[in-house]
């Protein structure tokens, strides 16, 4: 959750479809990187409004 109160969600776009996801129980999640091995990386926040940011990797 950012200071404006809107929630960020990570999204993967593949084969014409959008898949929304997020780190479990996170307030905000963003997917910033992806490789060709079905791995994505990003960061999330566990609290509303204020961080701290924490990193994640995810496979799909």
């Amino acid at each position, binding site marked *: 959750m950012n200071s404006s109160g809107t929630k960020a*969600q990570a999204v993967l776009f593949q084969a014409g479809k959008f898949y929304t996801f997020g780190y479990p129980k996170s307030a905000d999640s963003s997917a910033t990187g992806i490789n*060709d091995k079905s791995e994505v990386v990003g960061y999330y926040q566990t609290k509303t409004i204020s961080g701290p940011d924490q990193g994640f990797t995810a496979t799909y």
Partner: protein
Amino acid sequence: MKTCRWLLLFPGFVLVFMMAATAADAPTLTFKFTKYNVPGASATGIGGINNSGVIVGEYEDTKSVQHCFMLSGGKVTTINYPKAASDSCIHINSKGAIVGASKNTAGVTKGFVYQNGKFTDVPGPSGARSAVAYGINDSGVVVGTYTDAKDELHGFELKGKTYKILDPPGSILTIATGINNAGNVVMFYGKSGALESALYNGKTYKTINVPGAANSFAFDINTEATSFMRR
């Protein structure tokens, strides 16, 4: 490092374009998550991962200074641009070339490529006041953003020593964030009070906004998929 760290290199524009998202149904995939924080850091953000699983990002130390890091084989390496006040690593290609940005003590941001222990500056096209390198493919083509003399943001592609400016039609600011090995570039841009995303194939721009999102931020592209943040 509260939200969207890479954007904080240009702090004015993020706040201007924050808008509420509306819910949208979407198909699901199963994701298996692993949390990672740099030991001792107060905050960690991961920017990129290459096909060998090497990760780059940034962390905030106990003095609230941001540093680049690389995680390879379980070992964390801090990468500091010489004499920088802070720096960020954003992406890494399969040859180990890392792109990112450093900020000097005057607050000026400059992009870089880091490979084999050596930094190469990415200052942006002639006349640029600041720049960030966001993405790099395995051919070494770099994409990013720069501010011009009017402090307006434009996307760029850097091939060799030649810059190509990337601005989708009607955009009032552009940040090019990722490029794959086919040369397809993803970016997000400001238009009509919202942030939209586009895919550029070298000739044309195709809009790829997340359905139902007030703002769509395309961050990276691989051979067949694109990663986003939506708000």
